[in-house]
C-alpha cells in the first residue's frame, strides 16, 4: 500500500492549525477583556476627576463672594457678624435657655 504522506500531512496540519487558532482566540479574548477592564477603570478615574472638578467649581463663587465681602467690610466685621452671643456660664456654646427650639 502506498504511504499516502499527503493524508498524514493533512491530518497533522489540520490538527495543528485548529489548535493554534483556538489558542490564539483565547489569547485575543484575554487581551480584549484586559483592555475593557483597563478602559473601565480609566473612565471611572476620569469621571471621579470630573466630579471633583465640578465640586470645586461649585465652591468657587461662594469663596469669591466671601473674599469680596472681606475686602469690602474688613475681617473684623465679618467675624463679628458670624460670632455668637457670649455665654453667661463661660461655656463656649450659648446657654440652653437661650437656644432656639429644634425645628423639624
Amino acid at each position: 500500500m502506498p504511504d499516502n504522506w499527503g493524508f498524514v500531512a493533512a491530518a497533522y496540519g489540520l490538527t495543528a492549525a485548529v489548535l493554534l487558532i483556538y489558542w490564539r482566540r483565547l489569547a485575543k479574548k484575554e487581551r480584549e477583556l484586559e483592555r475593557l477592564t483597563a478602559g473601565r477603570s480609566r473612565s471611572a478615574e476620569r469621571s471621579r476627576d470630573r466630579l471633583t472638578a465640578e465640586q470645586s467649581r461649585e465652591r468657587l463663587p461662594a469663596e469669591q463672594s466671601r473674599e469680596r465681602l472681606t475686602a469690602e467690610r474688613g475681617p473684623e466685621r465679618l467675624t463679628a457678624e458670624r460670632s455668637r452671643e457670649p455665654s453667661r456660664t463661660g461655656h463656649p456654646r450659648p446657654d440652653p435657655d437661650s437656644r432656639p427650639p429644634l425645628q423639624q
Partner: protein
Amino acid sequence: MVKTLGWVAAAALAAGLVMAFGVAPREVTQGNVQRIMYVHVPLILASYVAFVVLALASLVYLIRRDAGADRLAHASGEVGVMFVGLGIATGSIWGKPTWGAWWTWDARLTSVAILFVMYLGYLLLRGTIDDPERAARYCAVLGIVAALDIPLVHFSVYWWRTLHQPPSLMKPGGFTGSASILWPLLINLLAFVVLYAYFVARRVRLLRAEAEAAA
C-alpha cells in the same frame, strides 16, 4: 500554573510528534498513513475525558448551584467539541486511503457524530438563553444526558457489525501490539490530555473574568 501547564503540553506534543514519526514503525499493511492513529486516537480519548468532566461538573452544578462548576462544564464542553471534531476529521482523512471513503454510516462513526452534534447543541444552547442561571441549568441536564452516548460510542464496535476497527487501547486484555506502537500512542494521549487541561484552565479563567466584568 496555567503557563507551566501550557509549556508542559507543548513539550509533550513535541515529544509525541518525535515518537509518532521517529520511533513508531511503519505499519505493514497500511504503510505510513497509519501514523494518523497517533493523533486520531488521543484526540478521541481526550474528548471522552472532556465530556466525562463536563458531566461530573454539571452534576455538581445541579446539586450545589456552584458557578465554578458551571464554568468548568462550559470550558470542558468547548474543548471537548473541538477535540471530537478534530477526531472525526482526522478519522475521515485516515478513512479515505484505507477504506476508500471519507465517510460511511458505520456504527462507530454514526455514534461519534451524534456525540459531536449533541455537544455542539450544548454550546449553542448556552448562547441562545439570556438568563445565565437558566442556561447553566438546562445545559447541565443536556451535558449529563449527552454523556450517556460515550459508552455507546466505545462499545459500538462490539455491539454492531462495523467497518471501524475495535479499540486499540481500552479493550479487554489491554493493548496487544508492540511497545514501539504503544509508547508513541501513550505519550500522545498524555500530551492531548495535558493540552486539554491547559485549554480548560485558561478558558475557565477567561469565563471567570468575563463574569466579573459583566457584574
